[in-house]
């Protein structure tokens, strides 16, 4: 009598500074499929995990923002290659997490979305910056610059396509991110973290926390070393308002919650919202 082979199940952990630690709180929570079956225990992130993730994101800023745009584009393109390589795994996880029959189309769109953003790395400055024709003997040019560290609340329902649509635009220009995954559908996010860890993305550029948005987001929103806050995935209007108020303390740039059609081609506003613009003047004279 032959026995069926027992599978080796994956442990789902946080992704901070390029490594996969458990939550410092030691807590976890059960993740269920769209049809209610138990899938895994995901780490339940605490405020200290948020603190550590922000520290890792900040530490990664100098190197990531100083990389040439070509280099960032290459790294993001490599991520797309890794995503494509794991297509089957993602299709399974998206199907389990979201239900429905759209998983394959969703994963393809997510990979293509990532490729679209990768191609912006060495172009956004040409579209969003430029020479300004001032009235005087001055050379004047505006260039976009990354804002530093952004905290992102990912979409709750669109666990992969929505996720890449908020993460890629944030990092393509040199910003680093602390990402709160979809509370109930975090598994594709953690697999994405594995993809990031095996591409050439420096540790700390993307940090991923799983857990309860209402518990972790306020710490991110109030953190004085975070420069911007993307509230896209906050579904509770009251919470969104509180978070925006907390963010006001150090004047973070805030993106308010939205629920777009994630399949539609985006505009460039998700990138530009997280960009500073630096304008330099220099006289012209012999």
């Amino acid at each position: 009598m032959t026995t069926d082979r027992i599978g080796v199940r994956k442990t789902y952990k946080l992704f901070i500074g390029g490594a996969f630690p458990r939550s410092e709180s030691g807590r976890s929570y059960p993740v269920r499929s769209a049809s209610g079956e138990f899938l895994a225990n995901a780490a339940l992130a605490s405020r200290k995990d948020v603190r550590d993730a922000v520290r890792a994101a900040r530490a990664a800023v100098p190197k990531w923002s100083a990389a040439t745009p070509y280099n960032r584009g290459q790294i993001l393109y490599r991520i797309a290659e890794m995503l494509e390589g794991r297509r089957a795994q993602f299709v399974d996880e998206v199907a389990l997490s979201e239900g429905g029959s759209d998983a394959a189309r969703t994963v393809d769109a997510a990979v293509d979305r990532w490729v679209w953003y990768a191609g912006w790395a060495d172009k956004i400055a040409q579209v969003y910056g430029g020479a300004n024709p001032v009235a005087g003997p001055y050379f004047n040019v505006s260039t976009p610059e990354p804002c530093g560290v952004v905290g992102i609340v990912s979409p709750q329902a669109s666990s992969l396509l929505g996720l890449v649509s908020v993460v890629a635009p944030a990092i393509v220009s040199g910003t680093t991110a602390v990402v709160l995954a979809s509370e109930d559908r975090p598994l594709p996010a953690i697999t994405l973290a594995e993809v990031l860890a095996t591409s050439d993305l420096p540790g700390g550029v993307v940090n991923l926390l799983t857990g309860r948005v209402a518990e972790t987001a306020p710490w991110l929103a109030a953190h004085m070393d975070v420069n911007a806050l993307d509230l896209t995935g906050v579904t509770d209007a009251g919470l969104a308002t509180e978070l925006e108020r907390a963010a006001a303390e150090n004047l973070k740039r805030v993106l308010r919650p939205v629920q777009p059609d994630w399949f539609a081609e985006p505009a460039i506003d998700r990138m530009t919202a997280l960009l500073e613009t630096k304008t330099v003047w220099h006289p012209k004279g012999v």
Partner: protein
Amino acid sequence: MAFEYAPAPESRSIVDIRPSYGLFIGGELVSGSGGRIKTVNPATEEVLAEVVEADASDVDAAVAAARAAFDGAWGRMPGRERAKYLYRIARIVQERARELAVLESIDNGKPIRESRDVDIPLVAAHFFYYAGWADKLRYAVAGPRPGSQPGGTRPLGVAGQVIPWNFPLLMLAWKIAPALACGNTVVLKPAETTPLSALAFAEICQQASLPPGVVNIITGAGETGRLLVEHPGVDKVAFTGSTEVGRLIARAVAGTRKRVTLELGGKAANIVFEDAPIDQAVEGIVNGIFFNQGHVCCAGSRLLVQESIADELLEALKRRMALLRVGDPLDKNTDVGAINSAAQLARIRELSAVGEAEGASRWSAPCVLPERGYWFAPTLFTGVSQAHRIAREEIFGPVLSVLTFRTPAEAVEKANNTPYGLSAGVWTEKGSRILAIADQLRAGVVWANTFNRFDPASPFGGYKESGYGREGGRHGLEAYLDH
């Protein structure tokens, strides 16, 4: 005790040069009906291979294949899918980088250090850069045409592209990447003395599973180029080469619907002010005229040095030139390789003789030139004035003409006093001066405190008789869109 560098040859075994090649048409290598021409290794004069000299029926077939692809799969393909083909090509170029660099050095004569560190990486970078534009064209143009479709951009159709021998694969990348990104199909003719890397590129297109007919490569000489440019099935002509031929092309397309861009010759002024960072300026001068054996349209072939530092600068320049290592292109320590052809060598020699006859003082870097092959020692002429032929005509070789000036205004005047207008260099530590001079120079590319820097994101092209249109950057897409 002298530090002699032992020979450090890059191995040839990585390339596989076939004795003869066909034409790449409709995704296949076909034998074509034209005659045959040989391509030679300029460092040794050894015959490398035979290629086809495409005739009228070959050109017809290539244009027809490009048209079929444009009307078919390629024309219907969304930008994001075209992008993925271009990304594949970029990746394959990276994977085969060493092989392509060796092949380029063997066929062209340029040092392996340059083909390895400059040419081939830029080839990959151009394909990567333009891959990313393929699905973003609506952001590339400054506003859609009134009445045009949503998105506002359309490709032109079939592009006929003719490229020179000085940066064979790089010039191919400058032409093909933006054309394909915009949704056009191409027929490209490499130069007759450097066909091999383009034929290797044909194989790369096959490895990338590029739909047949999107890229067609036809080899040949001037006549093949003329047939291609004048073919009624070509919607867009792109040419890089001499101003003389550029003129012929401009005449040939007159009155037709064909759009044309031309990147032609130059006689760039490299202006060194008295407050320049001297050691880096010397590097910039050397790089400006001796990089790629001076076979560069934007070469800094006229040094304009402020009189107050002229002696000091020239002494430093000669000292630096004496360190240039001229020799085997496949030796990793070679700085200056072979002249591309016997014809080009004859021209360089002729104009250098003219320089002496005109009364300029000639100085060449001491170096031992190999017996076989086409070689010319890095040379400079001092005591040159604007009226000399060597200050006006493009030599396209490792020959620098040195003139002096007293004031910024005089420098600008001399720099602009030429029918060409491709590039210029400015060396000074004073920022305002850089910007003021850059403003006044009538040149499409101004390099300040650097020279010969290229990037796919940076538009390149000339004023006046150096041609029109820009390659690289967002501007490089305009030539390939009907907007």
